[in-house]
């Protein structure tokens, strides 16, 4: 974690975002992960995404559980609020945080162990509530921090470093989120920044639960031959279904897209994403078809990536609750307390 302070040298030449901040202002402490760990690439993508979105760091809450992946919030956005909770239970903490202050940007970073083993129940229920947050799973098929046991996302037939072969079918966060009514479901690869950064941006801007399942190889325990979560394997079987561009609210959609091929989707704050199909037969707004497509490719050993499903029409958790649009934490006490007279009046019933 932020054990080691990273020297912060601002180069004169660094570009500044709309807030006048440089990318350095979105960085965090020095990573203590293994050299080459996929998670560090995700960290870099997060830094870039927030920088490009002009979000003030202190308006972001970084939520995590326990694991190598869950440590990463210490390595980005050091000026943001961090909450490193207990193993597998970050979704509930995020739910409470969201309930209290609907305006804070919530970014969850979790691992496959954290979200799909111990945290599976909480993860599913957060999807179901359509909690407004960007939820990244740094998925490596193993428990990194406890030294390489298979996680629930390990594929059948994948071999552990010590030779053991996983026999149990994997739990796929993407298919699960689809089945549970998730409103933004994406998959990517830590090695593919070009895809990952716009995805994270869109996920942050989506109003509701935005899952980004990122294949993020563990170089120490799961990057060998016969692992299906290694860099080599992922690069080989990686299949882009859709290409996504993120367009900020003020900007014009600049690139020219052919009709029918490109589809702009408006997000709640006026920003848009422009989707281009890479694969002919993919429909990002049809849940059933999307599931089929993913499953069909999965049978071929292929990993479908990109924004796989989006529904901007569903209300988020606050919409369902009809919460005051002012964050609850900003309501003055006077508004919350019914007062002495009301107390007297209501006690009539108790006589």
């Amino acid at each position, binding site marked *: 974690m932020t054990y080691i302070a990273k020297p912060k040298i601002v180069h004169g030449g660094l570009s500044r975002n709309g807030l006048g901040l440089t990318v350095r202002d979105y960085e965090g402490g020095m990573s203590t992960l293994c050299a080459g760990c996929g998670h560090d690439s995700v960290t870099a993508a997060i830094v870039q995404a927030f920088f490009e979105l002009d979000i003030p760091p202190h308006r972001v809450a970084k939520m995590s559980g326990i694991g190598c992946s869950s440590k990463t919030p210490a390595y980005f956005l050091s000026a943001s609020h*961090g909450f490193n909770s207990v193993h597998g*239970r970050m979704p509930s*903490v995020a739910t409470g*945080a969201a309930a209290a202050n609907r305006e804070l940007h919530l970014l969850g970073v979790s691992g496959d162990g954290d979200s799909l083993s111990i945290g599976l129940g909480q993860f599913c229920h957060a999807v179901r509530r359509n909690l407004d947050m960007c939820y990244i799973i740094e998925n490596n098929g193993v428990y990194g921090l406890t030294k390489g046991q298979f996680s629930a996302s390990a594929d059948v037939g994948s071999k552990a470093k010590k030779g053991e072969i996983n026999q149990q079918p994997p739990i796929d966060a993407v298919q699960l989120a689809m089945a549970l009514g998730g409103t933004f479901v994406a998959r990517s690869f830590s090695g593919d920044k070009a895809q990952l950064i716009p995805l994270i941006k869109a996920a942050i801007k989506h109003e509701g639960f935005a899952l980004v399942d990122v294949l993020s190889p563990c170089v120490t325990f799961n990057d060998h031959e016969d692992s299906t979560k290694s860099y080599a394997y992922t690069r080989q079987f990686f299949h882009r279904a859709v290409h996504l561009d993120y367009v900020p609210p003020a900007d014009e959609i600049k690139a020219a897209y052919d009709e029918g091929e490109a589809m702009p989707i408006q997000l709640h704050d006026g920003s848009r994403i422009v989707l281009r199909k890479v694969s002919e037969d993919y429909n990002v707004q049809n849940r059933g078809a999307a599931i089929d497509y993913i499953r069909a490719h999965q049978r071929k050993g292929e990993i479908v990536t990109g924004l796989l499903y989006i529904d901007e029409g569903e209300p988020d958790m606050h919409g369902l609750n009809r*919460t005051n649009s002012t964050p609850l934490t900003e309501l003055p006490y006077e508004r919350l307390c019914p007062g002495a007279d009301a107390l*007297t009046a209501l006690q009539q019933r108790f006589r």
Partner: protein
Amino acid sequence: MSARAKSRINDFVIRLANVNGTGSASANTLLMKSIFRMGVPVTGKNFFPSNIQGLPTWYEIRVSGDGYLARSGDVDVMVAMNAQTYQKDLNRVTPGGVLIYDSTWPRDRQLARSDITILGVPFARMCNEHFSNARARILMKNMCYVGALAALLDIDMDVVRSLVEEMFASKTKLIPANMEAIELGANYAKEHFDCPLPLRVAPLDKTAGHIMIDGNTAAGLGCVYAGATVGAWYPITPSTTIMDGFKTYCERFRVDKDTGERDFFIIQAEDELASIGIVLGASWNGARAFTPTSGPGISLMSEFIGFGYFAELPAVIFDVQRVGPSTGMPTRTQQADMLAAAYASHGDTRHVVLFPSEPQECFELSVRAFDLADRLQTPVIVLLDLDIGMNDWMCPELDWDETYRPDRGKVLDADALEKTENFYRYLDVDGDAIPYRTYPGVHPKGAYFVRGSGHDKYGKYTEESKDYKEVVDRLNRKSQTAATLVPKPVIERSGQPTKTAIVSVGSCDYAIREAIDILAAKGIHMNYMRIKAFPFSPEVEAFLNEHERIYVAEQNRDAQLKHLLTIETDYPKERMESILHYSGLPMHCRSVLEVIAPEVAKGEAA
């Protein structure tokens, strides 16, 4: 002659035997409230099974002009409406008492007793004759026995009527039928028996300024008044009605009439681990948040409670205790989660625990719990029990000081942060072991990293012994600060020189007060301390030290309160003796007398 035997006016117990799911609850409440409105102190205890429909259930009303509102253990009037338990109910009647049964069907001649009065009223027959609808026939039987009792016990019929009118204020159509049923019962009684019985109600003026309310509703209301905005829960008996109460009043007071927008967020979580996670997340983010639960929930929450302790996050947890261990008896009462609450979670921890004794205190301590949680930046557990939480208690009217403003504790707002050089989350700036906190999003300088792993006083991750110890040692000191901030014990001195005292908590209160009076009448004088909070305020140990002998009365098998006193004070353990009541039924004074003065207890029982 026992203290209670002195007068049978306004001093007896009615027990109503029914089957659950047959609508007897409102009839029983009506009966109790009628007595209350006559100015006579009264209390009602519901004994119900852990199922929804078809099993025996009892409601016990103690009428006590002297204001003794514990369970007495006697049954002076039994209303035996449940054929299934008739035998048992018959046996339960205290000699000299009265049993009322439904004489629609012939009573087994075997089931008789010569030492009590047995009165038959054909409730079913009368209702079947008067009402045509099947459901009404069942429901009206209940009203019918209320009528019979009103006549037998001399309950003011005008009071009954006005209560019925209030009950059905929104469905006035139902009033006549209900009154008819009541009158059926009353008339039958008047025609067939000498009314009133020697054992009866006589108007008094002892309930003015009081209400009848259950502790859970009062606690839920307290959360509204404390300004809580986020409530998370997973349903569990007997805590569910806390959230019901919160919801009722939030819906009444916190919904915008025009837009329907809500100034609160209630989350029915997927389980208790999620409930407490939600509470911690919301509290961290600046809301006042709480969760009601019961024993199994506390066990499930214990990992997160330890997190809250170490990361120093406020949280308010209501544990409405039921009978343990494990699932135990979910609809029975006990005080057996004290150790589990005080030291919840692995590692060195010590939590703030509050012990209300009745509904008015539930309201008060629920507000107080939020203030303490914010001030001390730590989870606060409010330990109610089923008896307090789910039964209707007569208690002082709730009142509200309009000048109250929440104590949010040491929070640096945007202005303060703007002026601050550096903000360090876990630094003991003021020497009271309580650091400053910030709410997320308020100011760039307020950002910090919350973690349950080792951190130093600046909030940085650490694995250094020295830095770690600095933090846990401060937490230990914070616990001492807590002892000075929590509610002080209630101390009542006998007025006579004595070196003996009773110490207790929560719902034991009425039983102990009654016992103390009985003992005093026998010349045995006792001081009394009711502890309201853990860690113990200095007054607790000081009080103990004034005495040579302490009786510690509590509702669990293992003497958990005594354990806490033994661990946390220097009072010699060998001078404490336990009074343990753990049957699952509310405590009565006999449990106390049996330990302190068995001979007096015997006299009482006779």
